[in-house]
């Protein structure tokens, strides 16, 4: 009985310490900010720079921040995605498994697609085909979200002739 209490307290303290350490460890990488919707939160990670850059100069900055497109908008879904993606990104980041090109995965694409439709429903409401998600809005609208060039090796130099 007593033993279990001790164990309980011990475990609790342990958990708190772990949580504290985790917080100290991860906060610099924007964990707290990650709870907000501020684009700067995403940009805490330099690897998000190109995406941020692209977004900043593309058309939607006037209309949408990262999470308007990259997280679902019904409450539970939004937070579960934030949690999972947050883990995913932090994990890859802290373990330095940063792919040569960061690309949106299948889940992200579907989430984003749903958000395009969410905001532009009236515009595209006659497009039965498009709304079935067989094809992504951004297959055609290649640049509205992040502009023309998106990558870690973002090159600001290109000047058209």
């Amino acid at each position, binding site marked *: 009985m007593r033993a279990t209490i001790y164990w309980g307290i011990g475990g609790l303290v342990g958990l708190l310490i772990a949580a504290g350490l985790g917080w100290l460890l991860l906060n610099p990488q924007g964990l707290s900010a990650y709870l907000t919707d501020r684009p700067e939160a995403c940009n805490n990670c330099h690897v998000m720079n190109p995406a941020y850059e692209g977004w900043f100069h593309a058309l939607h900055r006037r209309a949408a921040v990262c999470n308007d497109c990259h997280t679902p908008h019904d409450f539970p879904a939004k937070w579960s995605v934030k949690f999972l993606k947050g883990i995913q990104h932090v994990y890859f980041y802290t373990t330095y498994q940063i792919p040569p090109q960061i690309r949106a995965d299948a889940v992200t694409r579907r989430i984003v697609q749903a958000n395009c439709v969410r905001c532009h429903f009236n515009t595209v409401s006659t497009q039965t085909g498009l709304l*079935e998600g067989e094809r992504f809005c951004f297959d055609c609208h290649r640049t509205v979200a992040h502009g023309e060039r998106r990558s870690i090796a973002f090159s600001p130099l290109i000047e*058209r002739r």
Partner: protein
Amino acid sequence: QIRGPRLEVVRPVTIPEGETNPAVWGLAFPREYQTWLRTKEGRKTLFAGSIPYDKLEEDPRLRILWEGYPFAVEYGEDRGHAYSVEDVLKTKRIQVLAQKRGGSAPGTCWTCKSADVPRLMAEMGPANFYATPFEQLRERIQHPVSCANCHDPKTMAPTIKHVALQEALQKMGKDIHNLSRQELRILTCAQCHVEYYFAKEPKDYLVFPWEKGTRFEDIEAYYNERNFADWVHPSTGVPVVKFQHPEFELYTANSTHYLAGVACADCHMPFVIEGGIKYTSHQAASPWYRMEQACGTCHLDIPFIRKRVEIIQTITKGLQDAAEVALVEAIEALKAIKDNPNADPKLAEEARTLFRKAHMRWDFVSAENSLGFHNPQEAMRLLAESINFARQAQLKAIQALQRPQARVP
């Protein structure tokens, strides 16, 4: 929610089953109808567009290359869907065909010209439809290429109504009932913008020569296997094939846009915005004068893109002309050995085989309507091969007349 709500097309008026009049469909879908009507508007582009002109006048070599075939009598620049009935009735090719076949042109010529065809096919059955004389079918044809050719009036989904395509796809083991939307945005066009021939049996039956595949080489093999020829070129005596508008075949042969998942409709029927509503422009025409819409969502810099199109088409035109010159010179050389007892038979035969290959490759590209743009690499490859074979045909023909000892390997 991920896939977005599936939404029925709003349809105040219902379209009666078997309705073929676009104006009636237009009551339900005014925007699409209005834009379809605009296929009557015509403008010239750098190399194409919608202003009819006599291509034989512009390039007299064509008369020599198509000598003895209806295309040598008249070949015009095509224009919008709304003209399809008018233009097939006007063309001299029909009269020539009628003469050649003792009075009546094949009904098959209607197949890709009218919205009434799917209905008539259902009523008469394909074989019967094709076998009926052109003039006789005429009374039953009313509307040009329009809604009923591409849509199911119930779902409004783009649909394959064209028997020849249904049969061709089935032969290739494709299930026409589960095609992706993007495939349909290509295949609705492949109902007509494809190479075809008339089978002898059943009479004038319309066939797409795709049994071995849709690449040029597959089609060539298919025709050779059957010793097929549309006609024998008189002054050379070589049996040759006439190609027609193989847009689909050229485009899908690994072109950059095809591999990127782009469809015909993306460029030729771009979405347009009207009062915040987005719909498909049904003015199927050259994208030349609306590249901002047709190309602009994928390509930001339109002047750059337009310049590239000009460069690609101009270079292709240069090779196409070079191929025609080579073919014409080959014809001169082949004339000299035709029924000539002094000509070495083996070399003469080689020369004729080479000429057929060269003629086929050139005609495939020149019949295609984008002057290479749909697939620059493939078009240029075929033209280069055409030049190579044409020059070799000329060479062999000339060697066929040399005294053996003078012959150089």
